[in-house]
């Protein structure tokens, strides 16, 4: 603010303005308020509309070349849990609050449309985990209806996943699907949290149940609320064993191989939920109550901890209860539940 902006009729020399002190104060206050308003509007804009491609993201200084960096976020999702990426780079996100929709965003982060399990109201569904089949169909578990629904890439409902075996399981109350994943051959992996029967079910591409492994418990190879899962290049199955605070790896026959355990040391887990694997033998684990995504090198027989992505908070690159992760096209997508957004990270 320069004083020359104000009309200056004749006045005593040495004074640039005849405005009384209080008036200057008022002007300054108004200007400050206006500035504050502009800043507020700006952040609002950032929070709502900014597409991924236009956001530089908060580069953490000094870390370039040392792994994934926070890039930007997609807002406008209510307590998101699961995330998956379609063949054309579209992103699918499940919501556990508000309208509880599955929202579709284009690769730039613009909202495209949304869909939901058929014949449900907002409070009558809970879409949780999500996976895209090699054909591009979208598989969504609905915790409220013990359902695994299949949608087209555009979100049109195709069918419920209920081959004969699933119908039988349903009959005996033993079908409570939670996490879903596909391997490259199109086999479908599902974690099941039916009372006293926590386990993993594997279906071949025709929908025939070909393998079941695990039971409820805390011993090696057992599960206590298994959540997300992912299959690596070698066919190993990595399962987030939520309440046991670990990620367990199994071979293609369901034989226990190794685990990443719970604890307070670096690389130890707290409450793992979503898992994803990139093309370079990196395993990403969303550690909900630790508010980080942990990265492990799984090229060997034993996973090796590499780094924590993010920390607790509400700022760029910070998480509040991250839950789902997906890796596609060089990008890591993380649902940031309590911050109501999906973050993208990349090298």
């Amino acid at each position, binding site marked *: 603010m320069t004083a020359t902006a104000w009309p200056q009729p004749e006045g005593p020399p040495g004074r640039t303005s005849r405005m009384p002190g209080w008036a200057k104060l008022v002007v300054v206050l108004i200007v400050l308020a206006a500035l504050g308003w502009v800043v507020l509007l700006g952040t609002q804009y950032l929070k709502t509309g900014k597409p991924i491609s236009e956001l530089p993201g908060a580069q953490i200084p000094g870390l370039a070349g040392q792994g994934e960096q926070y890039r930007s976020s997609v807002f406008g999702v209510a307590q998101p849990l699961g995330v998956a990426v379609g063949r054309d780079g579209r992103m699918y996100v499940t919501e556990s609050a508000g309208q509880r929709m599955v929202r579709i965003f284009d690769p730039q982060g613009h909202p495209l449309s949304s869909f939901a399990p058929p014949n449900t109201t907002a409070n009558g569904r809970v879409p949780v985990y999500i996976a895209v089949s090699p054909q591009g169909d979208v598989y969504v578990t609905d915790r409220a209806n013990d359902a695994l629904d299949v949608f087209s890439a555009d979100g049109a409902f195709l069918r419920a996943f209920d081959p004969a075996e699933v119908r039988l399981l349903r009959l005996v109350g*033993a079908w409570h699907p939670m996490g879903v994943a596909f391997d490259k051959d199109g086999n479908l992996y599902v974690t099941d949290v039916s009372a006293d*029967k926590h386990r993993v079910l594997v279906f071949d591409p025709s929908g025939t149940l070909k393998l079941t492994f695990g*039971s409820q*418990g805390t011993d090696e190879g057992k599960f*206590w609320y298994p959540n997300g899962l992912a299959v690596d290049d070698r066919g190993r199955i990595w399962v987030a064993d939520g309440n046991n605070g670990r990620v367990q790896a199994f071979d293609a026959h369901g034989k226990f191989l190794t685990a990443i355990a719970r*604890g307070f040391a670096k690389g130890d887990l*707290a409450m793992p939920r979503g898992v994803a694997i990139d093309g370079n033998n990196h395993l990403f684990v969303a550690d909900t*109550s630790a508010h980080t995504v942990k990265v492990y090198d799984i090229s060997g027989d034993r996973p090796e901890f590499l780094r924590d992505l993010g920390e607790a908070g509400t700022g760029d690159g910070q998480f509040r209860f991250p839950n789902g992760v997906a890796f596609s096209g060089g990008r890591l997508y993380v649902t940031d539940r309590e911050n109501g957004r999906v973050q993208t990270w990349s090298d």
Partner: protein
Amino acid sequence: MRILWPAVPVWLVAVALAVMAFVVMSSGAPSAQADNGPHIKGWGATADGCAACHRAHRGQAEPNLVQDQASLCASCHGPAAAGSSLDVIDGTNKSDGGALRGGGFTNARINTADPSLPPSSAIGVLAAPGLPAGSTHSVSGTPQTIWGYGAINAVADPGKSSFNLACGKCHDPHGDGNYRVLRKVPAGLLSYGAPLPAFMPDMTGLLTDESPKVYSTTNYWDVSYTDQWQAAIQSPPGPVADTEITGRQVGKWCTTCHTRYWASTGSADASSGDAIFKFRHTTNPAGRDTHGRAGPVTLSGSCLKCHAAHGSNATAATGVGMYSGSVEQPDGSHTGNGSGDSRLLRMDNRGICQKCHNK
């Protein structure tokens, strides 16, 4: 003689066999923690579960706890029920589809318009997903007033202000061997080791654990389930000497916070001397009748006969000539047109009164 078996279609036999195979295949040994989940008393020296909820050096909230508590609990007890079958947000038991006794924090399944009147007075259950909970014991983390906390006071005093209600204030997430891991004395009310104030009920010996655990409810009116709210004769809170405490003591538990809501029989006609809580509906009239009409009605479970513990979908009418939704809070807030707040009641408007009195 002809063999009869082909009369049974082959497919039926196949299905029957398959079902049997599945029952066998899908049965598993019950887990060790089937009861209290991760909330088990006595973790021992090799405890590892602490890390699920606490960080040693990088905790984000007091005490060394991951961010806000309700979100932590909801990571397992939320609508996704990703770590428990008990979804307290939608008030549903996700393993059997049943309703939960506490109601729900976002949606609840109480049939708040159930027409039954004495002598049955059932309060039914709504099919999932239930209806939005308009009134809750809000655990959002905003400081609030515990209505009625403190001794009887001739000077208007609505309660203890600036209290941060949270799941862990009522429940002990570490497990304490009590019914629903409820704390005998709420956390955060008294400083560590301080003696209980005289106006707070003594919970020694009260609350036992229920085994095996039963979560679903089929009737929200029935709070006489087993003996977790243990019967015992205790010295009463407040100045009134009371010899009638023989019912189940839900009321005592609730009045560890809402101390002045504890009202012995006859309190509707006798002034307590308090400026705000002067005449009070009895909350402990074991075995009393409702003065005529309905015949003997036990108020066992007192507070929970009328209120839900977490959240209720009951509605309270507001607007011209409507009363229920316009009752002000003890500090005088929510006056005028009314907030429509149904005060955790189990029935719409004041339908709950009719469940006993049927006037």
